[in-house]
């Protein structure tokens, strides 16, 4: 595993030079979506890779210890064991990448996973999720508490007010402080692209987030009107590549929100493979934030193994 991204100084000159041609990005996205996707065992393998990259998420007002517990156990055994055995993957440790919950539920998740003898990381959203419209001090405190409860990954949201008004220095400083508050926990920075206006702004915000030391940059909270779209993802992963070419540090990418079908997960993997290369196709550098996606992938794997289309009740629920 490579070293964490330590961040760099804020390079405002580079940020001012960012240029994105919207139509070219849209065309590229169309091209990637139009590609032929893998079939047969290639499809099965890719789908399992998608499973291994899922941050299995529940972010609802009515979350309680019981449904968080179910979620954790599903994360440990995401695909029915007999199906995995059929493709000889039962002993390869296929789990999702993490579970992702609200800060108040971190302790529940940690407890459930510990009881199940799993070392699966627990991720927590923090910093006034989803709007980020709370005072900096409480947002920092939220991060510290989640870490103290045992979250090893923190999904922070950026302050859109700063990004939209071009106050990149202030945004950089805030993220820097979050990074400090995270300590050893990995930090994923949510850009909330649906509220950033232009692709150029998305690219700039991505660069600032990485310069400030994010381990991942993440598209959206799942609570905005526009979530993870392919064009915006292309802009973000190009920023990741830009940062990598300049500093040598690999920053991860996490699309989240609205990803529901197995087919979409294949397109996401293809997009990463095309733009960033195979290095990024692992949970260390790529995550899919999703909740219902796993059920559809499991059905597709069921179909690959049995040749039948499964009813939802045939597969264990989360």
């Amino acid at each position, binding site marked *: 595993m490579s070293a964490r991204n330590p961040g760099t100084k804020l390079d405002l000159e580079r940020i001012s030079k960012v240029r994105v041609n919207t*139509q070219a*990005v849209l065309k590229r996205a169309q091209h990637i979506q139009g590609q032929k996707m893998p079939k047969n065992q*290639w499809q099965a393998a890719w789908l399992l890779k998608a499973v291994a990259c899922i941050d299995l998420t529940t972010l609802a007002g009515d979350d309680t210890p019981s449904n968080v517990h179910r979620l954790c156990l599903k994360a440990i055994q995401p695909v029915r064991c007999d199906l995995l055995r059929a493709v000889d*993957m039962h002993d390869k440790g296929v789990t999702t990448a993490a579970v992702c919950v609200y800060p108040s539920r971190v302790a529940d998740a940690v407890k459930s996973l510990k009881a199940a003898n799993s070392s699966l990381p627990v991720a927590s959203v923090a910093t006034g999720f989803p709007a980020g419209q709370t005072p900096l001090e409480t947002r920092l405190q939220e991060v510290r508490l989640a870490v103290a409860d045992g979250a090893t990954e923190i999904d922070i949201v950026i302050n859109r007010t700063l990004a939209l008004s071009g106050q990149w220095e202030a945004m950089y400083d805030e993220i820097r402080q979050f990074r400090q508050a995270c300590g050893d926990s990995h930090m994923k920075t949510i850009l909330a692209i649906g509220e950033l206006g232009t692709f150029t702004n998305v690219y700039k915000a991505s660069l600032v987030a990485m310069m400030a030391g994010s381990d991942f940059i993440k598209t959206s909270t799942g609570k905005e009107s526009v979530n993870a779209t392919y064009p915006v993802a292309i802009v973000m992963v190009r920023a990741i590549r830009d940062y990598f070419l300049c500093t040598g540090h690999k920053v991860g990418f996490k699309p989240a929100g609205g990803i529901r079908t197995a087919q979409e997960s294949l397109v996401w993997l293809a997009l990463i493979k095309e733009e960033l290369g*195979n290095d990024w*196709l692992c949970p260390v550098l790529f995550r899919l934030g999703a909740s219902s996606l796993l059920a559809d992938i499991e059905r597709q794997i069921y179909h690959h193994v049995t040749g039948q289309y499964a009813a939802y009740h045939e597969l264990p629920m989360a």
Partner: protein
Amino acid sequence: MAGSTDKTVHDIFQSMEYGPAATSSAVTAQAWLDHHSRSLGLFIDGKFVRPADRQSRSLADSKGGNVCSTVCAAQDDVSQCASSAVKGHKAWGDLSCYQRAKVLLRSASVLGQHDLCVSELCELCEASCSPSSLVRLLQYYSSWAQLRDTLVANWTPLGVVAVIASDDCSLYSLMLKVLPALAMGNSVIVVPGRTSAPPALLLAQLLMGAGLPAGALNVLTGSDMSLGASVAQNASISSVTYSGNKQDGVSLCKATAGMGVPVSVSPNIGARCPFIIFESADIDSAVDAVLEAAFKKRREVHWVLCVQESVLDSVVARLRHRMAGMKCVALHSDGDRGLVDSAVQGAQQQGATLVQSCAAPPSGAQYPPTVLCGAAPSSPFVVNPPPGPLLPLMTFRSNTEAVALGNHSPHGQAASIWTEDLTLALEAAKSLSVGSVWVNSHSVSDPCLPVSGHKDSGTCTDGGQEGLYQFLRPSSSSCPPLPRSSPVFMDYSKFGTAASPAIIPDDSDPASAPKVYLQFVGGKPCKSVSGCSVAVQSPGGGSVLAYCPDGGRKDVRNAVEAAVKVQPGWMKKSPSARAQSLYALAKGLEAKRRDLAASINAQTGLSMDEADEEVELSIARLSDWAAYCDKVQGGTPPLPQCGSALSLPEALGVVGIVLPDNTPLLSMVTLLGAAVGNGNAVVMVPGQKYPLPALAFIQVLQSSDLPAGLVNIITGSRDQLTVALATHSVIKAIWYWGSAEGCQYLQYSCTSPLKTLRLSCQKEDGGKDWAQSHPALLEETWRSGVQWKSVWIPTA
């Protein structure tokens, strides 16, 4: 399949490879081929015919498997086909515009119904062409068929048009010629190349099924370019148009020289095109487009990547990152591999560094995508691009240098430029001497945009309304300017070498000594470089009326040099400024009308009244052209895609004009005004019989505000000067009135670089009536001085 199925899920989970590309079974296309017993006949008179005892030519797919064979048409088939096409023209031409439009529109839906068969067949034959682009062509041209008599009134179809393609020509380029010809009411004989033959036959069948009359569209297949020439030889063909590689286009031009049939050429395969990335570009998107454009298996053009120095490192870093892991590209043959290897070796010896997706396999007909960094315009692999996925990369310092680098090529097909700076994009687009400029995009085409290959990349305009005129003639012109003939045997190297008779001093009466005229080069009246003169006979003959300079190669060279200096500035002037100059020229002519009339009277023997009328008409004609200047101005055609496009008329550059003999002043100002009004410079050769009015016109030119060198007049032996014009590469077009032999000479020799020819065989009885001023006739003349550029600016 061995080696692919034994990969376990876990292996793939680790490697994350895509897996084997799904091979399309092409069931529908195979069934169609099987229905024809894998041997396709000729398509004549609305049906497939399979004449006995013909040679056949087989077509193999990329893996060497047999796709089908096609018949090699013989002379009998050509004549049968031609007579069917004549009948087809009658039947098709007798339909109303609406009926023709309906047939084409129905073809679009028939094609939509069978798009699977078409796309599979195209893929099998490696003539890739998406059915949706064909549907777009059909829909676009069906609307032109509908509106022909409304929007292009006063024009009639030519008759039977032969559309000839080289083996590597794409189906799309072929149909971009066939459909406008049909839409205008011509019948068409298609001579497709090897790869486009089966899809062309299938399309002919589909169009026939949509209600095209028998004979309106015929397809003849053959073994090589010689079939094209023998089709052109048939007397019922009115026009020949060609699409494909340059080499075959040249051999077609040479083979058809002297047949008395106009040949237009669109050599859209194999041109060298600049791909320019400015520092203000979205570099990631630009690099993405580079990879897409340069490393396709079927490349129609050779891209040369030009990158601004300040962003070179970031472009190369991204190329390196994105290219990692790209697969090798299949080459056509092992021979190609040798060429690629030696090109790469040569490049490395000159210090080029490689960016390669993977190491080249030791042998075999494949090669990894390779960028050759550190290329220069003089690198051998830039001058003569080898086949295969090689992309030279050059750097430039400034915007002006980028344009200079892009323009410094014999080709003028297309360019792709990348910048987010709109002003820079438009300035570069205007300065690049190419037919298509793609801003922040590449390789897109649409039939609504008129495109003329600049420089060596074409002699005609395809697409848009402008592209229709190559298949039309003015209704009022009675006969074609170039009558059908048989090529005569001639020694092209001897043409125009006969020496003019020497002028020796005689002891005639000094009072009646013939006047000595000067020619006009670079804005100055002067003698010829050789110092020799030729005698001009008086109208009745018998006596010498005057002496005028005996111009030759050197005079043409001087004139072109002067013209090239001022032409770009003249073209950049606003059309209204050019109009004012032409009005002033007309006024200047009016001031000297008595002199000119006297000169016409003395030279041609016309009465003073008749001469005066010719001057009057000439003044009116110049005013016509002055008024025209700001009227034909392109526009922004509506595109199916999102974004804007500009279609811009541009001057050809320097035009050589060999003037007709009759109505010497009127014919000269008609051609001069059309050329100069469009922004061209001219080198004119007055008719050998009546050169004096043109020389008398020099005084009018001298007092005009046209820049010195824009208009040059050189007298002397017509043949000798025709050769001089033909052998000067800067001259882009020649308008010629003269002998059939001269026409044949020009058709044969103006191929490298290609020149746009407008040929008229001059008849003894006078030929064209220059006093006519039908709108279509004027338009035709005006249009011959323009070439079209399209600029694409896609937006979100």
